[in-house]
């Protein structure tokens, strides 16, 4: 994916005029139009600089997969991928994500075909209420890419940023194991 380097379109000018003309522009504190690439689609949205990526997705773009649990970086329900890395949407400012592709749980499936991690969550009953599940899925997808699914202890440690109030942890680990083993088998069969 190409990395967009253009600056946000800034309605406000640098505060202190009259200084050297090369100062970088200042956006906000009012709304600014920014462009986000979410699940492969480029979308423009007007947000204040203080708006989190989570709120921009949920409240402005209608992408409600990422959930707001604690809004302070403690629960992991808002986990999304930015440039392929799992991060917390609640502690990320939307304006910092210009030109950095964002993937949410909505971007995992291929049309009607669920992602293997989603299939495994269903097969292993890896949730009860489901509120944390979008974040769990994003972390599980990332964890498998990171190669941190060696054994149950490792899975538990590297999934620890995703809290499940229903305590579906054993089944979440089972789902991760299943995908891990299926992938290993696939590779072995080459």
């Amino acid at each position, binding site marked *: 994916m190409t990395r967009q380097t253009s600056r946000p379109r800034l309605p406000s000018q640098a505060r202190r005029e009259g200084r050297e003309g090369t*100062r970088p522009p200042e956006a906000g504190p009012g709304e600014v139009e920014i462009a986000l690439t979410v699940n492969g689609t480029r979308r423009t949205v007007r947000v204040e600089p*203080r708006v989190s990526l989570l709120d921009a997705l949920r409240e402005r773009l209608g992408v409600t997969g990422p959930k707001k649990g604690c809004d302070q970086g403690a629960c992991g329900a808002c986990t999304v991928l930015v440039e392929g*890395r799992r991060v917390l949407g609640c502690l990320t*400012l939307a304006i910092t994500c210009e030109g950095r592709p964002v993937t949410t749980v909505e971007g995992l499936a291929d049309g009607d075909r669920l992602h293997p991690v989603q299939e495994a969550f269903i097969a292993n009953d890896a949730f009860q209420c489901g509120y944390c599940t979008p974040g769990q899925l994003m972390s599980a997808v990332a964890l498998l890419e990171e190669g941190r699914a060696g054994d149950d202890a490792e899975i538990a440690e590297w999934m*620890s*940023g995703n809290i499940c109030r229903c305590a579906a942890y054993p089944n979440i680990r089972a789902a991760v194991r299943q995908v891990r083993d299926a992938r290993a088998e696939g590779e072995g069969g080459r």
Partner: protein
Amino acid sequence: MRPFSYTRVSDPATAVEEVASDPDSAFLAGGTTEVDLIRIGVARPRRVVDINALPVSRIEEAPDGGVRLGGLARMSDVAAHPVVRERYPVLARALESGASPQLRNMATMGGNMMQRVRCSYFRDGDAACNKRAPGSGCAAIGGVNRGHAVLGTSEHCIAVHPSDAAVALTALEAVVRLRGPDGERSVPVGDFFLPPGDTPEREHPVEHGELITAIDVPPVPAARTSVYLKVRDRESYEFALASAAVVLRVQDGAVAEARIGLGGVATTPWRAHRAEEALVGAPAEGASYELAAVREMREAVPRSMNAYKVELAERTMVRALRTAAARAEGVG
């Protein structure tokens, strides 16, 4: 959440200029502390200056056998770096035992050094807190202080320093490189964290607008068998109640070199000098470790709810020393 404005910069000189020239501007790196504190009203910048595009995120081997960690290097990338893992397992382990994978993907090394305390009275905008509102008092001293510090405290603040990585960097005697309006300078980690004393609001000898461009970790051959041990209420994703970073070299059955950092028990990443002095030359055995640990904690000042931390820190130190000695002998 208070509104603020936003400026993106792409070179260190501009970043420093933009923040140094405006007392109400703040750097924004990973945001894991800054965005959180702005949201709860404890940090109140007029504007954030986004420094994530600055070219100071590399992790480089230094010619002298050390490593240079860019100020914007992410915790996860530093922890995963093969050179860091081989030469400084204490640092890799400390990093991986902090926060969560998501937070470590976001948080930077420079930000880790500048992170604020997790004291609930600091985070609660109404409570007395000399760190947040100088002169208002310290609600923790007579309050819920189970998690607070027993070393390096003052009558004005007992908040514990939350970093794991900085504890390892203290034992490794790393050096923080700063860039400010007047140029560059270096501050040894041992001088980088200020005990609260009479001015708990001042946590670092860093001027407004000074930027952490790198952290230099010097060559420490004995660190290849170094250990980081963290004890906490939960097995994962929790701050330390006590932690120990240990670099130990054993020669002919005696301790030849010892460097110990303590976390979770002090107001700064704590260098256990007294324990180190007791260890060097002593037999590399449990009795020496216990004596050294007791000696370090002798000056602890427990409060109503955290007296347990004295013994916990001693035991954490002893166990980390035993583990480090076993590793060192395994290599030797």
